[in-house]
């Protein structure tokens, strides 16, 4: 009975945090987010070489460290705290998807940091798990994929895409390399610290990675929700810290503003939601690693952590006052990260609605029509 991080987790957290103090300092983040690619290949190489982050949640047989989502969650929490600009979530998700599907060669490549990868599942105007309009057609030289994907994380820079496409037999997952037949177009989103692209596949050569998309995709999305939740906890924690530090320091009316109950109680409420988010994210990662109630835990973590991050980021600004709304202060970057993160995979409302069916309140046909 031990529901808390082990000492190895704390060690991992510390080493990542120390590393990111440099690689993802505020000035590094601002430089990277304004760069063309949106992240620094140099920093990324160091993260891969020195910390071996992409290999963390990869079985040892593929050259990984044999960790799970709990360990990867620790790292993503730190990435969230610092707003690290790097293809860590995108590549991490591609790896987790490939672990469910393809052979280990690509996993090893990604885990070693030699290439980056990403998921290309969502299509314009549709949900992540809608039946894809993108089509895969078998030919003499293997499969060809045609269609457009949206909200592809780091899509402009990724080397490898895990793409969902419809085949005559149903939805399957394919592996597509950047290059011929693949065109990425950056989307300007609210969040400058996370790059997203629209990716057009035009008869792009593809390898079948997993035939049973209908089973694989929900599982991959649960993993994505759990890892994003871990990142959101980091965002929320850091915002709470920033607000607390400022409240201790900022003097108004002859007192630190943190001595006023209005500020105290606001931050206590944030703390409460941060504690809830921490618990939910940790449990979901644990549940995924142990094969417990993953779908439910992921939905709870998704809803809880999304809202906690936005709450913390918003209250951080409110506590800072005007200065928190300036470009020069990092508070707005956290707000932007939290805003996109909250809706990126599923709106909290949709996470919540998904809880009810397993809990015994399925939506009936009549209810469906109400949506």
């Amino acid at each position: 009975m031990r529901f808390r991080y082990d000492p190895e987790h704390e060690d991992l957290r510390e080493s990542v945090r120390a590393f990111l103090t440099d690689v993802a300092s505020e000035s590094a983040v601002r430089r990277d987010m304004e760069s063309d690619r949106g992240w620094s290949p140099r920093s990324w190489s160091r993260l891969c070489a020195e910390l071996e982050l992409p290999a963390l949640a990869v079985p040892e047989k593929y050259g990984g460290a044999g960790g799970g989502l709990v360990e990867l969650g620790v790292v993503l929490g730190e990435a969230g705290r610092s707003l690290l600009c790097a293809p860590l979530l995108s590549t991490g998700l591609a790896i987790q998807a490939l672990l469910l599907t393809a052979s280990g060669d690509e996993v090893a490549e990604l885990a070693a940091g030699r290439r980056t990868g990403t998921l290309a599942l969502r299509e314009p105007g549709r949900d992540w798990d809608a039946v894809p309009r993108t089509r895969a057609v078998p030919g003499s030289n293997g499969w060809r994929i045609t269609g457009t994907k949206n909200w592809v994380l780091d899509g402009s820079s990724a080397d490898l895409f895990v793409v969902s496409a419809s085949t005559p037999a149903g939805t399957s997952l394919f592996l597509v390399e950047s290059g011929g037949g693949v065109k990425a177009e950056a989307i300007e989103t609210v969040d400058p610290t996370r790059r997203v692209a629209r990716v057009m596949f035009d008869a792009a050569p593809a390898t079948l990675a997993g035939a049973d998309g209908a089973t694989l995709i929900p599982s991959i999305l649960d993993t994505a929700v759990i890892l994003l939740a871990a990142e959101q906890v980091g965002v929320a924690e850091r915002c709470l810290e920033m607000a607390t530090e400022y409240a201790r320091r900022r003097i108004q009316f002859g007192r630190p503003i943190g001595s006023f109950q209005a500020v105290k109680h606001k931050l206590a409420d944030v703390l409460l939601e941060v504690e809830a988010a921490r618990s939910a994210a940790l449990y979901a990662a644990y549940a995924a690693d142990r094969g417990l109630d993953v779908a439910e835990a992921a939905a709870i973590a998704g809803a809880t952590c999304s809202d906690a991050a936005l709450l913390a980021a918003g209250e951080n600004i409110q506590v800072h006052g005007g200065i928190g709304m300036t470009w020069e202060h990092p508070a707005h970057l956290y707000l932007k990260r939290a805003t996109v993160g909250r809706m990126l995979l599923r709106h909290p409302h949709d996470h919540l609605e998904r809880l009810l069916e397993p809990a015994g309140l399925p939506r009936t046909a009549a209810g469906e029509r109400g949506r």
Partner: protein
Amino acid sequence: MDLDYPPQVAEFRAEVRAVLAEELPDGWAGTGAIATAEETRAFVREWRRTMYRRGLLGVAWPLEYGGRGLTMLHQVALVEELTRAGLPFGEQPADSTGVKMLGNTLLRFGTEEQKRAILPALLSGEQRWCQGFSEPGAGSDLASVTTRARLEGEEWVVDGQKTWTSGAHTATGIFALVRTDPAAPRHRGLSFLLIPLDQPGVDVRPIRHATGGTDFCEVFFDAARTPAGMIVGRPGDGWTVASVLLTFERGEEAATNPIHFRAELDRLFELARRKGRDQDPVIRQWLARARARVEVMRYLGYRILSDVMAGGELGHASSVSKLYWSEYHREVTELALDIQGLDGLALTGKEATRPLRTDDPGADPSSSRSWWNVSLNARAGTIYAGTSEIQRNILAERVLGLPREPRPGS
């Protein structure tokens, strides 16, 4: 990280299940399912005797005081099983304030004499102790207690008044926070005293609750007496002793709260179905939010239990837990009223038989009287055992390290 319980605890859990299977009537569905409030109370009285007979009270206490010498985790497994079966831990509130709170406190701070005199009697039910902390002028500000005790020869003589004393009308004694050194600043001058209730210097008057029930009392002391040895800790230690005691209140709750709140939420789901509101998307969002919060309570409970297992005392996690469940309960009971609509405000069905928090497991989901009682309990829930405002202060000052407010004139 590992949520599994060790094998010895799993074995003990099996034993508990076997006892329950033997002792409970056929078709048992929880105390809430018993037809009337009166029968429920009678059953619980009897059930308490059964628990004692089967050695299920004080399992984590040393053998010499009537316990079984098992671990805290055994006790947790026990209350989990009881709660899942819709059974209370003994009789409430006496066994909560007595066995759980006073008993564990004596194990930690009591003299050998106190332990021998009181612990076995707590288990047998011969002694029932209630808690005397709050006063009319010391609610949120517990350190401003004014009930005072002075040593006269071999006895403490106590004057003053306590309030919100749960179960005082059926208790045999009260453990009270009293001022023994009027010169010492605030909480420094407090002591923790054990005072028998059956004496001329004590007057117990029930307080009528907004529901109409009388679960709480005022206790008046007019030169009430207790032997000099009935102090727990040294004079002036009262604040420390009381603080530790309060954490016992929260310890097991970490395990049982999620079970109770989950059972209540299941009843609410059923109510929504019966009222035809389960397809209303607005109601669904609230139900789902409640479901997520109850699960988070379970996760928070794991964290608190882990802390306890790791040998630590319950610290600020208990403030997180208290604020989380009490605010949740306000929300979910308001939802219950909303789901029922106007007709739910016409009172029908069995009353809630548990005085605080949720109704008993097995309660009828269609009893509007139960939901109404529980919604009032939920309002009390953000007040008793430290208001939400006090909990937020604790979190802000002790966890976040925000500066205390300036004291007037300081």
